């Protein structure tokens, strides 16, 4: 059985676990039990469903891409997580965690963010539920995602720059964990991906399962069958986990796309950081390497442990694309379908364009996990139109 409950050890095969300081163990246990209880409680599920419908705008559509499909010789359909409130899939997880945090009596949300999408979603949920919100963001990312920094502030969150290391997502996670260690009694760490200590990888995947569940129904209804290939970009891997979970029990090939500068599954070896055992880009001494990607949301040297497991058992495969390929791909969808993708999603597009011969004639489902508005300023500095 894959993509089910990993049980109390929090292990997906050999990966995962709960590698945290003793101080945080009781909070992780409390969260594990609170999530199990809430997830089995129809009242909690009903409230989350209501928010997803009335606030997020779910179900979002599945969109056929006829002009793109014609140009590249396979049938592309996209799950439109970019149409969610706040502009990405991140809101699915955040609403779940914020509701849970409130149920646990926590008054403050702490989050890390890379591109700012998770930070914006967390700030949004905090505002919605009347909670305090503190978002840690690498200083480099604050520069390249200025717009999202402003949005978070507008939503009432405090945005704190992470000034150590590569000053990107990895360092923002470090700062968020340091905050959580000090504030664990009243704060909930609203982790933004399928990573970290148990129960986060499991819980965050469950909150994103709705992506795969909806997409499967929509695909059946529209195309009368499951897709041949399901693809999504992978940084920590939450949007991929969400859509993969809907198809892991089908014959669909699952393909995660990593940035060449941060390919934990592709180039990493097992290691322990940020609470989990997973593939990790590290040197021969175990020092974590800094990722380098044009996309702030994928600029992370690790990956969620369930992806390491799916890769190691061969259920999913992970491919890499370069920044140059991403910049090219970023421009294709606006031209062919009138949709500006997030730079993160442009990774999956870049792979499909490169792999078009392999995909010829197939039905391919891609998770369009976020919209590209946030990337426009950055891309204006790269593209001359």
């Amino acid at each position: 059985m894959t993509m089910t409950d990993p049980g109390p050890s929090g292990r997906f095969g050999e990966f995962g676990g709960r590698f945290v300081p003793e101080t945080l163990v009781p909070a992780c246990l409390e969260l594990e039990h609170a999530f199990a209880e809430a997830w089995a409680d129809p009242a909690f599920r009903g409230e989350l469903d209501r928010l997803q419908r009335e606030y997020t705008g779910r179900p979002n559509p599945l969109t056929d891409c006829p002009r793109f499909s014609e140009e590249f010789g396979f049938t592309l359909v996209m799950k439109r997580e970019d149409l969610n409130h706040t502009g990405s899939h991140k809101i699915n997880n955040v609403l779940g965690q914020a509701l849970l945090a409130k149920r646990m009596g926590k008054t403050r949300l702490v989050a890390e963010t890379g591109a700012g999408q998770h930070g914006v979603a967390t700030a949004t949920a905090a505002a919605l539920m009347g909670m305090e919100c503190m978002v840690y963001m690498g200083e480099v990312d604050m520069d390249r995602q200025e717009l999202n920094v402003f949005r978070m502030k507008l939503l009432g969150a405090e945005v704190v720059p992470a000034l150590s290391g590569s000053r990107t997502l990895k360092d923002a996670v470090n700062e968020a964990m340091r905050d959580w260690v000090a504030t664990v009694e009243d704060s909930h760490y609203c982790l933004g991906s399928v990573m970290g200590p148990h129960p986060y990888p499991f819980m965050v995947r469950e909150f994103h399962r709705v992506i795969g569940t909806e997409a499967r129904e929509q695909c059946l209804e529209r195309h009368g069958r499951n897709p041949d290939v399901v693809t999504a970009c992978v940084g920590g891997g939450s949007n991929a986990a969400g859509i993969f979970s809907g198809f892991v029990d089908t014959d669909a090939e699952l393909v995660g796309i990593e940035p060449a500068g941060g390919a934990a599954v592709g180039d990493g070896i097992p290691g322990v950081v940020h609470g989990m055992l997973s593939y990790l880009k590290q040197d021969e001494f175990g020092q974590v390497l800094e990722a380098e990607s044009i996309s702030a949301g994928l600029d992370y040297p690790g990956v969620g442990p369930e992806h390491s497991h799916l890769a190691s058992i061969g259920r999913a495969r992970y491919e890499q694309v370069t920044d140059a390929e991403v910049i090219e791909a970023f421009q294709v969808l606006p031209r062919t379908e009138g949709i500006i993708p997030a730079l993160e999603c442009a990774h999956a597009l870049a792979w499909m364009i490169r792999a078009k011969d392999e995909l010829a004639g197939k039905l391919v489902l891609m998770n369009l996990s976020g919209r590209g508005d946030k990337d426009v300023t950055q891309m204006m500095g790269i593209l001359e139109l």
Partner: protein
Amino acid sequence: MSDPASSTHTPGRIEAALRAKRATGQKCLVPYITGGLGDDWLASLSAVIDGGADACEIGIPFSDPVMDGPVIQQANDIALGAGVTPQTIASDLRGFESPIPLATMTYYNIAYRMGHERFANMLNDAGISGSILPDIQMDESTDWIETANANGIENVLFAAPTSPDDRLARTGQMARGFVYAVGLLGITGERDALAASAIEIARRAKEHTDLPVLVGVGIGSPEQAVEACSVADGVIIGSTVVRRLVEGNHSVAERADSVRELISEYRTALDDAFPAA
């Protein structure tokens, strides 16, 4: 309450030294320094020894020290930037005859990457007899503890203010060397006043173990050390020591003098408040 006698084992070098100190009625002083911080870092270690420490923690720098505050993060960065590795630290220590026991304080991925057996061998080879890995709790430490025990490495475990009694009891049984009582909810670094949680966690930890219980994280002055030792068997001081190694532009000799002086201040304050019986 668990029966402390149930964790019968032969005390290692660290436990023996700290127990001997406790038996005199005095308190234990265990400073931390970052391994490889400056070419002259062994002079810092000598200064710690000369100042009157009972044991010393040698930090192996890690890229992502999530339990450390700004001062130790900075020391980590400086050492890593200078090309320090676990092997260079071990090799520097080889031949250094330390009169006090040493423990390494590092993050688990360093040990995991190297392999438990090789890590234990490296420590033994360097004359380091203990390990302190703050980012992994005991339930994820069992494999390492087995290897450590088999190789005579004393693996210290943590008692946190958030730990319930059943976990404190297991900590008391599984820990070797001493129990590291985390003085507050937070990361390493000095604070203006000793947190009330420091005394409380020391008291609770001692109910569950006969091992020496030392308070670390947040101790910022000799007075705070004395206060913590009203219950604890000793203190660990890190950031306050490392600050003297990373701040200002001082010569090797000046830095060593400054560290020796600091350790002596703590030593004197503790010995005055808790003289040998």
